[in-house]
């Protein structure tokens, strides 16, 4: 499982970084989303991968740590998702405005000669 998990993170982060370095704002925004997925998975994975364990203590089950998964990365990921969502929305608005005002969706606001 862990290998697959790590490969998944790697593939998504790689695609994300590659897109991040592209010249079109749309590519950058998709790249940012992919990178965010990868980072979220990475943080999540830091709490070990466990199947069938909950992060919230259930009074009926008892309090042995073996029964539960680490809740801290999950809480972090939850926060990261929300923040990532908000920044994507903000980026989107800014990039749309840039696209409208400059007439191009190049990240520099103008087409380069090489493009």
């Amino acid at each position, binding site marked *: *499982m862990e290998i697959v998990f790590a490969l998944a993170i790697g*593939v998504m982060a790689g695609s994300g970084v590659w897109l991040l370095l592209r010249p079109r704002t749309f590519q950058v925004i998709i790249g940012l989303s992919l990178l965010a997925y990868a980072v979220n998975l990475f943080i999540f994975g830091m709490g070990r991968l466990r199947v069938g364990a909950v992060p919230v203590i259930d009074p009926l089950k008892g309090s042995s740590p073996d029964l539960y998964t680490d809740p801290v990365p999950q809480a972090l990921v939850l926060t990261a*998702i929300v923040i990532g969502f908000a920044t994507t929305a903000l980026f989107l608005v800014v990039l749309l405005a840039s696209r409208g005002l*400059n007439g191009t969706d190049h990240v520099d606001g103008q087409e380069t000669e090489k493009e």
Partner: protein
Amino acid sequence: MSLLLILLLPFVGSLCAAFLPSNARNAEAWLAGMVALAAAALVASLYPQVAAEGVIRTSIPWAPGLGLDFSLRMDGYAWLFAMLVTVMGALVVVYARYYMSPDDPVPRFFSFFLAFMGAMLGVVLSGNLLQIAMFWELTSLASFMLIAYWHHRVDARRGARMALIVTGTGGLALLGGMLLLGHMAGSYDLDAVLAAADTIQNHPWYPLTLILIVLGALTKSAQFPFHFWLPHAMAAPTPVSAFLHSATMVKAGVFLLARFWPVLAGTDLWFWIVGGAGLCSLLIGAYLALFQQDMKGVLAYSTISHLGLITLLLGMNSPLALVAAVFHIVNHATFKASLFMAAGIVDHETGTRNMQRLSGLYRAMPITATLAVVAAAAMAGVPLLNGFLSKEMFFAETIFLDRPGWQRIGLPLAATLASMFSVAYSLRFIHQVFFGPPTDELPRAPHEPTRWMLLPSALLVLACLLVGMLPGVTVGPYLQAATDSILGSDAPPYSLAVWHGLNLPLLMSTAAFIGGVALYRAFLWRTGTEVPLLERIDGKRTFDWLQTTLMSGAEQAMRWLFSPRLQMQLLVLVLVALGGALLPLLDTGSSWGTRETTPLHPAFALLWIVGAACALAAAWQAKHHRFAALILSGGAGLATSLTFVWFSAPPTHRRSGHRRADPARPALVAAPRSALRPGPARDGPGAPAPPARPADRRCGRPRSCGAGLRHPEPPRHRWHFALLHRTVPAPGRRPQRGQRDPGRFPRLRHPRRNHRARGGRADRIRPAAALSPGAGEHSPAAPAARAECG
């Protein structure tokens, strides 16, 4: 507590002076004069206490946690210097009142003048190393403001900037030296540092500390090779030159060297650095002073030379030389300030300071001429004047220098040579300006100034005479107190007398006089401005070169390191992040570890085969098939969400958290209505643009976004310029210049820019109208469309 009062008085006065009206010359002068006099009286009143107790201290807790106190400390040496600063300040204020023209905004002048006096007193009276460095920088700042007082003049601005850069850099070095010194001594308290001489001189950091502190002192005192700023600082008003650049600020450097003399001096390194810089300044300054045409230029180079003499004395590692140095500090301040005042009077009354134009002023201004002659004679070292005494002491020290071989012979020769130059330039200064045939080609007819302008100069000349004739009575006890406070029990016995008998120093003086007069006679015809031999040695040129090189170097570095392109910047960021992440691996290496892994579930593997494919495909397609890329990135997001669910995410989240949040991101991008349409296809640019329908333009909103859309259905929403429309020209075909790329989305014009481009009122259309594809410059249909809109 009166120490604190002495320090605070000038600063409070400076604050008050800043708020007086700009034409209140008398009020300003009274305020500044009273502050200076009151401070002088306070300092004078402390003398019995200083003489009796040795050191007076006052300290206020500043940062007790760090062991730092704001402490003030006055011993005999500080007393002498504080007296010098305050009395000179009072005299210069009287002079400045009559020197400044009614058009000059005096509050600025007197405010910075008093602030400078306060900062200088702070340097002198501080009992803490860091405090000294702080006040040191304050003197640089105040001096900057005073040099640039006539800031409408280019030379004033340049001179001020140069002085600030040089002395500010030196101040930074000084701060470093102070920190090292405090660290070595274990305390920043001056008394503790002065008591730790052995510890410091045996410490491995001693050379570095010495170099840093000497760097600070040499820049401040305009010593070779940092001497070049002083002549350029002569653009300041003359009272400023008289106060800062002869009597006080440039003395701060030698003050500091003498202050730390017990701690730092006594080594070969000290001898070579301090003595070497002093000797170079002594000779070069005196030599260059010979060829100056500006009266203040002569005085500036002569100041460099005399400060070089003091530095050389301090560098000689002999207690008697230190006594001579302290004595010469006082003597030089009196005759040089008086000469600056004379130069200012000449400038004020004739309108020029150019020695080639001035001649025969003795007849028009006999009193000024007499005062200047006496002061210049003191500068040249004529007997019965104070300059003679310290110069004799200097000669005696050069003879008795305890050094081997050529240094014993070379130093007296160099001293005599410098003294010869000094006689020659003093003679030239007096002879060219005040004697010779009277000239009537001056901007103003010369006449004697008001007596209040002469008074300060006269008092200083009187001091020169009194000290020169009765040294034991006038200055003896104070000098004794000052040197005792530096040297402690090592203070050597010495006698301040005019006549020491016929000895070698007297012979050297005589030789210097004869040589100087001969030199002047020989070069009397000389009027050119170029300096023989040392033509190429010009500190200013080096300074300018250094400045330009630094600036262009910075630009070059910017060009290398910086790119305005976001892609390059991001690439650097990614590479740095990657490097940072890989760095720990260098130490520890990577291994698989021993922890048990979770058994692989085929469905999970399948999920991520699809997810990874989605991510890769999204990256691949994001340029041309944007909608597809959006959907694909949503697929990757879905796989991520399912992974969260798989690995024990809480049920609450499962209902409302991750599962919604992640696929919502593509939905966000697609939220604008138009974005839900599929993106432009590759065939776009190749297809001819469909004719724009008039109806499209009527409401001023575009109905068609150009060719290449699979859905010709026009968007009704304003968000039609969503990112899903690419602006990339299709591969292999670029739009020609002047021809509109049909795949390119119309440009949203800024209303103002649009207006300017067309230059007419009729074009003041709503911005939305400009979105019309026909609104570009190349469409003949555009005016009609706009008219319809109007």
